[in-house]
């Protein structure tokens, strides 16, 4: 006799219709996020221009580039800097299309949101280009807004180049070598690891739910389930934090996190520094002399 537990329903499973369930969408999104991090490590390990630089020098030079970009006024020069980020991306084996998409979909969008008011006659009076009812876009306002967006795009581009061409482990090493407290660096490393681990847990929870659901569930059910699972993940996170602390104590942790950072600058890094300084001077010089404010 077949026990009730093993009884197979005679009814054919109902076919799903309509959009994908919340569980599936969330699991896919998390899987995508995790895969992106892992792929990023692969890209950062490939043989490209930016990848070959010492992470400390890369970090400092990109910071300087971003600051320089904020002092550049002329739109042509900002355009040159935007093109420069793309050229660096190409030289670093980064897909220029995905690089541009990422920069403009995030930095471009937020830059637009922030700078849009500056383009209006309320904030920047001047020659009116377009009027939409009470809203008027002025010529000087448009220049200011475009300049702001371009600066954000340049900064975001350089920032993204560092993130995409530097492994997280090297980035933390660079921070450590640059004098950031070992405890802070260790906390960042643990946070990254914990986030990855919890993302996997959440992904599996959603997939487990998906595998036992015949319909997408009501919005109310989904909300309740997500809230309950969030509480579970929070509890699990705290338990893991306790266990990690025990593991640290077990290996002699006494409050300090000394590390052996082993980074060496090469002649390539020196050449990069010289080229970077020259590029910054040139950008500011041309901006001031050719396009005076």
């Amino acid at each position, binding site marked *: 006799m077949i026990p009730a537990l093993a009884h197979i329903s005679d009814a054919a499973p109902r076919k799903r219709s309509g959009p994908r369930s919340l569980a599936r969408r969330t699991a896919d999104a998390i899987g995508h996020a995790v895969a992106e991090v892992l792929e990023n490590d692969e890209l950062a390990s490939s043989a490209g221009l930016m990848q070959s630089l010492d992470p400390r020098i890369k970090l400092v030079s990109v910071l300087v580039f971003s600051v320089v970009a904020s002092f550049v006024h002329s739109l042509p020069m900002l355009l040159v800097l935007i093109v420069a980020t793309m050229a660096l991306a190409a030289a670093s084996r980064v897909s220029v299309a995905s690089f541009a998409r990422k920069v403009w979909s995030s930095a471009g969008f937020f830059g637009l949101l922030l700078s849009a008011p500056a383009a209006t006659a309320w904030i920047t009076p001047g020659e009116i280009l377009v009027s939409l009812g009470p809203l008027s876009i002025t010529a000087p306002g448009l220049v200011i807004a475009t300049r702001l967006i371009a600066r954000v795009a340049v900064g975001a581009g350089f920032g993204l180049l560092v993130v995409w061409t530097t492994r997280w*482990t090297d980035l933390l090493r660079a921070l450590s070598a640059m004098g950031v407290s070992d405890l802070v660096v260790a906390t960042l490393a643990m946070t990254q*690891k914990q986030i*990855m*681990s919890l993302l996997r847990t959440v992904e599996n929870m959603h997939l487990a739910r998906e595998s036992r659901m015949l319909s997408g569930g009501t919005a109310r059910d989904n909300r309740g389930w997500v809230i309950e699972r969030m509480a579970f993940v929070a509890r699990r996170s705290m338990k893991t934090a306790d266990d*990690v602390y*025990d593991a640290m104590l077990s*290996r002699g942790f006494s409050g300090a996190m000394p590390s052996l950072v082993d980074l060496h600058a090469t002649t390539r890094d020196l050449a990069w520094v010289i080229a970077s300084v020259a590029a910054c001077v040139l950008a500011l010089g041309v901006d001031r002399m050719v396009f005076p404010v």
Partner: protein
Amino acid sequence: MTAEFVLTDVCHTYGTGLDALDHIALTVEAGQHVAIVGANGSGKSTLLKMLDGLVFCNAGTITAFGHPLTEETLEEPAFRREFRSRVGFVFQDADVQLFCNTAFDELAFGPLQLGLGPDEVRARVAEVAGALRIEKLLDRAPYTLSGGEKKRVAIASVLTMRPQVLLMDEPTNALDPRSQVWLLDVLDQWKRAGRTVVIATHDLSAAAESCDRMIVLSEEHAVVADGAPEDVLAQRDLLLSVNLIHEHAHRHGADRHVHPHAHEHEHV
């Protein structure tokens, strides 16, 4: 033989009021390979954490290397340093144990905490990584490693401290067959080096293969057997009563019979 750990009438109760260990009395001698076996929730992991000074008893006493092992004594820097350098603990969940930036940092963490110089630390990392064949993993972040690789790095992170006693919680858990064989080889090398190993497991075959002493914990958290693995494993009724084996029906052609069957995997 020298007694490395002596537990006398040790009891432990969780904050929730649940009993974890009930009047445990045992001695672990130097060079012994001990398997603590028991069903899920029998208190194996708690006992192991107690031997590592991470959990403390509510009643009874524990001494390690002739010194009382308590929260207070572990506050003393000299004893803490000596104890931590002599006892290594490999956690059941390798993810918990790998908290550093890279596998290299994991292996270097313990020696650095012990105050060793950079050259000595690098030498130890290179030696252990070579022995465990994980040189290629040293530059990688722990979260990018597979389950077996994480376990190797977790074990290596303890071995770089060159402990006298190795504590391992469910060492074969989540390992594929090849990694299990590798682990048993590591334990065998450890045995030949005269070091002490205490493992907590419910994998009876791994315990029998790698240990020369088996301690059985009941589901009531008490020691119910302590002896050579072959003697303990011969006590079928005892193993049935503590839920380490179960009656299992098998069909061979037209015949169907029942015989004891061991749990070899975590029942989640």
